[in-house]
């Protein structure tokens, strides 16, 4: 397995050298960063891009005629084109900068949901959603008298497509579904789900927060009506995210926030909204973060999403094999198609204690409910310990994880 560490095009040492934080030490141990599903680390060129923007390019955008404003606007819009290309959106008008995945879902909830969903209507989500793709819809249901329907999940973490088809009745006005589960790693075959919804004329929002950094995403091939993701999970900064939406919907939707930049003209009698995408970008956006996200996407494309997906799959397979050999460990989420997320529980050691003990060895994992409490309830566990891998992780780091889990058992006196 380790022989695969270096493919023809992928030089792990060079890749790791791109990320200054990866050479950090935690106490006297080298950092082993396995919390990538929460947030990925940032390569030097993205850090440099932010510094360059703030030193040589910064001003407000879409406003003034002076040099800096023109430069900042051009760079901001260039970043939009990079995103458009990255997800193969038909038009840059369909690429909205948000503050992140949560913001994107809330935008669709307000802009689409509050306009088109009413009493007696239904919204379909899945049992493996992040809270960000549950709570906004619940808020809408409460406000509008609509009902939330949930696609069930099996013990492996796979959704039931048959049950989903059964839910797609005439009252359903929206399907909101994850592409990759953050708690279990399940890759949902969203294309099938979208096709089935479209057969009944139902629009589909896909939560791509965990998918966009790890597998190639083509919104036209998927056919989704909305696709949302976050910059900081794909080597960009926090505070920036993307909503892709089909223009036919975006044109009809209400703006989420009112303010500057989203208007064509304002008088006290009537305000006319700006065209897409600006209609949904009220106020001064995180300009530097958007430009840095564009740089991060260039970096990821330089490595290649196919290469990233293959590398992470190898890491996951190696980690699954290593962790499975530890007595008393149960892996939560064993779907046939998985992204590089390894959620686990260990007999006799609470996930939080596991997280603290692993931290002693410099191993950073996430412990808790992963903002997916219904998933924890489904598996009757309070929390899991989750290791999540990125392309810059190594097989040696997986070994460090396994060794640290074994040491935790020794400390706790667990067989």
């Amino acid at each position, binding site marked *: 397995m380790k022989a695969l560490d270096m493919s023809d095009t992928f030089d792990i040492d060079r890749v790791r050298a791109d990320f200054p934080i990866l050479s950090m030490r935690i*106490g006297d141990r080298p950092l082993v960063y396995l919390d990538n599903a929460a947030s990925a680390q940032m390569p030097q060129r993205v850090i440099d891009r932010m510094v360059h923007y703030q030193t040589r390019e910064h001003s407000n955008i879409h406003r003034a005629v002076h040099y800096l404003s023109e430069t900042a606007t051009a760079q901001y819009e260039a970043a939009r084109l990079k995103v458009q290309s990255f997800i193969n959106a038909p038009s840059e008008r369909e690429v909205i900068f948000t503050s992140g995945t949560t913001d994107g879902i809330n935008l669709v909830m307000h802009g689409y949901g509050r306009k088109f969903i009413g009493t007696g209507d239904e919204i379909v989500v899945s049992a493996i959603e992040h809270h960000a793709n549950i709570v906004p819809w619940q808020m809408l249901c409460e406000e509008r008298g609509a009902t939330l329907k949930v696609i069930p999940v099996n013990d492996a973490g796979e959704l039931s497509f048959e049950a989903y088809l059964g839910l797609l009745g005439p009252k359903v006005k929206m399907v909101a579904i994850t592409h990759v589960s953050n708690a279990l790693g399940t890759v949902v075959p969203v294309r099938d789900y979208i096709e089935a919804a479209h057969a009944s004329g139902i629009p589909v929002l896909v939560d791509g927060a965990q998918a966009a950094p790890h597998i190639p995403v083509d919104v036209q091939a998927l056919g989704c009506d909305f696709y949302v993701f976050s910059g900081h999970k794909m080597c960009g900064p926090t505070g920036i995210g993307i909503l892709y939406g089909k223009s036919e919907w975006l044109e009809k939707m209400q703006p989420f926030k009112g303010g500057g930049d989203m208007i064509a003209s304002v008088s006290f009698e009537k305000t006319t909204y700006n065209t897409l995408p600006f209609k949904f970008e009220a106020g001064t956006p995180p300009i530097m973060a958007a430009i840095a996200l564009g740089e991060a996407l260039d970096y990821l494309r330089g490595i290649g999403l196919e290469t990233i997906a293959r590398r992470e799959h190898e890491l996951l397979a190696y980690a699954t094999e290593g962790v499975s050999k530890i007595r008393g460990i149960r892996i939560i989420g064993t779907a046939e198609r998985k992204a590089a997320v390894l959620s686990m529980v260990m007999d006799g050691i*609470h996930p*939080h204690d596991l997280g*603290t003990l692993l931290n*002693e060895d410099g191993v950073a994992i996430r*412990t*808790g409910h992963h903002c997916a409490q219904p998933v924890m309830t489904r598996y009757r566990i309070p*929390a899991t310990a989750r290791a999540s891998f990125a392309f810059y992780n190594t097989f040696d780091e997986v070994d460090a994880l396994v060794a640290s889990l074994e040491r935790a058992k020794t400390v706790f006196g667990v067989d």
Partner: protein
Amino acid sequence: MSASNQLYQEVILDHNRKPRNWGAVADANLRAEGHNPLCGDHIVLTLSVGAGRTVDAVGFEGDGCAICKASASMMTVAVKGRPVGEAEAMVRQFRDMATGKLDPERDDNLLGRLKVFSGVKDLPSRVKCAILPWHTLHAALNNDAVTSTEGDAA
């Protein structure tokens, strides 16, 4: 040596494995539940406080991490037989120790063996685990049936 090496001492591991005063007190007249929504820690505390305002009996049940369970177990041992006023003082002292405001070696306190939890002050994300049982004790003694670590300044 890192912070958690100091925290996971044998006494804590032992109380985690074999919690003392486990179960509900049969003739309890005070009861409170404590939740830590962040990690799912959940404990139910029952007490019998007599006319003399003394903790005559105390028991706990629930699910939680080792820090939470050991803290609860050692707390029940420490407050059993004590006047309510002293138990309340220990609640304050334990919280102050866990948040680094009280140095158990220097400042006056009743904490005794509970000093093993002083290391938790270096692990901010685990402070709530240690404090939850004490929160719950405070709630029970003040007739608040349900308490949570959320919204707590600690």
